[in-house]
């Protein structure tokens, strides 16, 4: 073995008239010169290849999601004919946000726009799947929205990739390559969400809804605006109005409007409002950890958050928040065991906060925020 090694070393480090060694030297110098002039181009080629690989994965995810959506709509909707054209049209939908140059009344304009979007989406899904019931309509709508999100991600990344290649701009490609790991995580989450919505499985975002559902078990529930259910539950001698979106279809409802209505109905005589929601965890924190704070724990376009803040300010209602920590991937993919295990702990915390901050006989609001897919009441 040693003579072979010696032979190789003699080839790489030449001495005297070793021709092979000289060839290596020349090749090495050649590579050095080429890299001096074209190093950046090579770097860009490597980055382009990485982006291309991720773009291919995104395309595959988008196409798979689309295929799943078509199959599922056909299976559930029992539409005579092919819904492919309608689904493709749905996947290209966009919504233009209202003017915020003049911020006065922007919340109401945004709410109106979201309502129109919601109605349009639901009507389209009903046309695609005329035989589906309300729960299935909600699940299909959520599933198509997740597919739409994957389509948007794919199109945007493709745009910058093609732009970077066309302009040969290292900086466009570099920015894309740097941000891609985060985008891929989001895309993975949407792909998982699409499958969860298709099968009606509870997702991590429904942690708040699950807490409310557990609290309202065995009590009479009434429907309130919009797509919300409410139950009056006696907790530790207090009268609690427990709210959640109506399940088990994929639905977030309008918790802000429902909370405002309860506060108005009780003429502001609410001693405490507790909002329970899934909260984004920082890296390094454990999934399912519970944390308490103050403020309105409602995500999304902030219309509901605004309504609760307005009503709470008007009637001087203290608003507390309890969050169950999870990352964005867990929030939109099927619920993890750690989150389910945390639910009883959250209920204990809710009871403790009520005991500490209210008196017997007081009225409190407990709102479970989040998508209630796969969670009944």
């Amino acid at each position: 073995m040693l003579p072979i090694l010696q032979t190789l070393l003699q080839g790489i480090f030449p001495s005297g008239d070793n021709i092979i060694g000289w060839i290596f030297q020349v090749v090495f110098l050649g590579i050095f010169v080429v890299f001096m002039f074209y190093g950046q181009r090579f770097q860009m080629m490597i980055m382009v290849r990485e982006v291309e690989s991720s773009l291919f994965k995104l395309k595959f995810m988008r196409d798979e999601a689309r295929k799943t959506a078509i199959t599922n709509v056909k299976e559930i909707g029992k539409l005579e004919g092919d819904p492919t054209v309608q689904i493709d049209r749905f996947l290209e939908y966009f919504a233009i946000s209202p003017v915020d140059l003049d911020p006065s009344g922007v919340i109401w304009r945004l709410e109106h726009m979201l309502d129109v979007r919601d109605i349009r989406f639901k009507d389209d899904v009903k046309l695609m799947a005329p035989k589906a019931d309300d729960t299935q309509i909600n699940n299909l709508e959520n599933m198509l929205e997740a597919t739409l999100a994957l389509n948007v991600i794919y199109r945007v990344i493709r745009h910058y990739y093609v732009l970077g290649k066309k302009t040969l701009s290292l900086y466009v490609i570099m920015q894309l390559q740097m941000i891609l790991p985060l985008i891929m995580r989001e895309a993975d989450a949407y792909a998982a969400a699409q499958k969860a919505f298709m099968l009606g499985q509870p997702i991590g975002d429904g942690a708040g809804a699950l807490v409310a559902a557990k609290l309202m078990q065995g009590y009479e529930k009434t429907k309130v605006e919009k797509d919300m259910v409410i139950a009056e539950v006696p907790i530790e001698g207090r009268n609690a109005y427990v709210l959640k979106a109506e399940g088990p279809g994929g639905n977030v409802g309008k918790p802000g409007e429902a909370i405002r209505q309860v506060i108005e109905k009780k003429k502001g005589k609410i001693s405490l409002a507790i909002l329970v929601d899934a909260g984004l965890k920082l890296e390094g924190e454990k999934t399912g950890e519970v944390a308490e704070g103050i403020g309105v724990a409602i995500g999304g376009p902030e219309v509901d958050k605004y309504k609760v803040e307005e009503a709470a300010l008007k009637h001087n209602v203290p608003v507390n928040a309890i969050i169950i920590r999870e990352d964005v991937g867990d929030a939109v993919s099927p619920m993890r065991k750690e989150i389910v295990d945390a639910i009883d702990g959250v209920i204990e915390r809710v009871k403790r906060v009520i005991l500490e901050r209210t008196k017997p006989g007081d009225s409190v609001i407990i709102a479970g925020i989040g998508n209630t897919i796969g969670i009944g009441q």
Partner: protein
Amino acid sequence: MSQTTPPTRRLSPLLFAVIMIALLVALVCIWQGLVLFLDQGYSDIVSLYLSVGLVTLAMSTYMMYQTRKRMVRIISMEMQPLSSTVQCTKCGFKNIREFKRGDFVFKETEEICPKDSLRMVISAIYREVKDKDKAKENAY
């Protein structure tokens, strides 16, 4: 919108052929180098054969590894298994089974409690993350 592209499309036949030819050339070079070395001892041509063979072998193996890695990453988009906990509301008897389409939390199922003969309710639906992934999450 375009049709679904199967993941296998990524490994083009041309690339596969190039890798295979390179691998073959590498093995032939190494073999030839070794035969010549054992036959005649050290010479420039032995060195050339071995160097070219080893460099080509390294490059083709790397290319093969890269292609395989990408394919594995794409194909691993499988669904994680989900469990439904079915519970008796009276005695608390629990049964954990695989999630079925149509299951939702607080749904009254057709399953009967063996102790109380009451219909059981789904009390939880969840997925379990592999210990390996959990360890990665909790490493810091």
